[in-house]
């Protein structure tokens, strides 16, 4: 169960890979983005809590020198919840920080995305644009960083043959 991601990747089924991707996008989305995506939903499904939103922590692990043995670097706040839609689809939210609403919306979208009838539509209308936003924010920061890259040049001194 605790196998590292890289080991899992080899035998991962496509459904699991898809779920990993959208859960990551939902966790890293801003709350305001999720709220407006939710507002656009024509029908808000009823649901029951399997686990009401709860804020806690996870201990972050790192590796000595980046590649060596593991150690604990410190903790991070996380909020989680689980819910079940009226149609039986269960959704899970695990998101960094202390926003219960963020976890709830992530779980709702997670449940809806597992429902075959809506998945394709939500993928196009919600997940793809959110991911595009995240990539664009990252790229913007990265371009600013790249403007500080040093271009070394060598001054030739004296005369060679």
């Amino acid at each position, binding site marked *: 169960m605790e196998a590292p991601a890289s080991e899992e990747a080899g035998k991962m089924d496509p459904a699991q890979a898809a779920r990993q991707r959208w859960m990551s996008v939902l966790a890293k989305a801003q709350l305001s983005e999720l709220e407006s995506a939710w507002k656009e939903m024509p029908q808000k499904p009823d649901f029951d809590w399997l686990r009401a939103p709860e804020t806690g922590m996870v201990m972050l692990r790192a590796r000595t020198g980046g*590649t060596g043995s593991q150690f604990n670097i*410190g*903790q991070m706040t996380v909020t989680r919840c689980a819910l079940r839609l009226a149609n039986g689809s269960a959704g899970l939210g695990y998101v960094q920080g*202390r926003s219960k609403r963020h976890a709830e919306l992530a779980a709702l979208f997670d449940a809806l995305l597992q429902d075959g009838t809506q998945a394709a539509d939500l993928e196009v209308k919600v997940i793809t644009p959110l991911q595009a936003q995240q990539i664009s924010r990252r790229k913007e920061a*990265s371009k600013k960083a790249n403007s500080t890259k040093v271009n070394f040049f060598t001054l030739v001194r004296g005369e060679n043959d």
Partner: protein
Amino acid sequence: MYVAVKGGEQAILNSHKLVAEERRGDAAVPELTLNQIKEQMQLAVDRVMTEGSLYDRDLAALAIKQAQGDLVEAIFLLRAYRTTLTRFGETQPIDTAQMAVRRRVSAAYKDLPGGQILGPSYDYTHRLLDFALAAEEGVGEPEAAVADEAVDDSIPRVTDILNHEGLIEEELAFGDDGPVADLTREPMAFPAERDMRLQNLARGDEGFLLALGYSTQRGFGRNHPFAGEIRLGEVAVEFVPEELGFPIEIGEVTVTECQMINQFAGSAERPPQFTRGYGLAFGHCERKTMAMALVDRALRARELDESIEYPAQDEEFVLYHSDNVEASGFVQHLKLPHYVDFQSELQLIRSLRRRHDEDHREAAE
């Protein structure tokens, strides 16, 4: 005889009220918001998260506001809050090779794949006070330069790519299935292994580690360090929820990593090679991670068969005194009433003094 002393309650209540008023300062000046602290005091927030050992920018900003900017007090507040939260588990190890790099420099190699990226750094500023920041109208909205291209998606670590000759020791992932020391659950034990030491140093006081790291450079534990690589950026946090059984990304954190490379003459077991010290912490905190890497290397003396002669090499000395929450508590508890202790000491001194006086009188006679 036991004497209960009461009567401080009202004084304490009023002291709290006085603190609240002083914290607010001049009411004619607008009150600080947490967003202002979070956005404009980022490096203070980073230090509080690192030493408070909890990654949460909002909570760190709140702690800084509540502590009137006293960062060690803010760290204490964050540590205390942490104990109220349930722990869901441990994450997968973060992968700093996959970092979205915003700064990356090496003092050991000039030309390296991925290049030298200065990022947001005070290193090349002149350290002259900038009165533009004091101007009434503020600085407006400064704009960074933007390159056409982003930096490479993943920039390999210097220590991983420039080691063709095997002259730098490798860090190999041993014991992935074994337990990892955790100071939040078990007390320090000696000899302390590297996992426990690194956790202690990661949340250790920056000032203390800086002084110790400095001491190794000045000859109190010669390590001949080079900053092999310092990198800053965002890494994904992967966690395996019990409900799923496979890892998902639940967020991302900013970290600073320092790979220090140190000369090593070799021992009975090891050939001469460069050894390594490691520093890693939340947010942007280079001074902290560089000091951490120096001290980490110094504390490897036992493992590398070096003689332990200096404070930075003495793990009990370093690890027992690095935590500013503990240190501050023990130093500051001296302010609490010690009336009875002091009375008994007074009696002792009086009787010693009487005997001393009598002895002198007899000697004089």
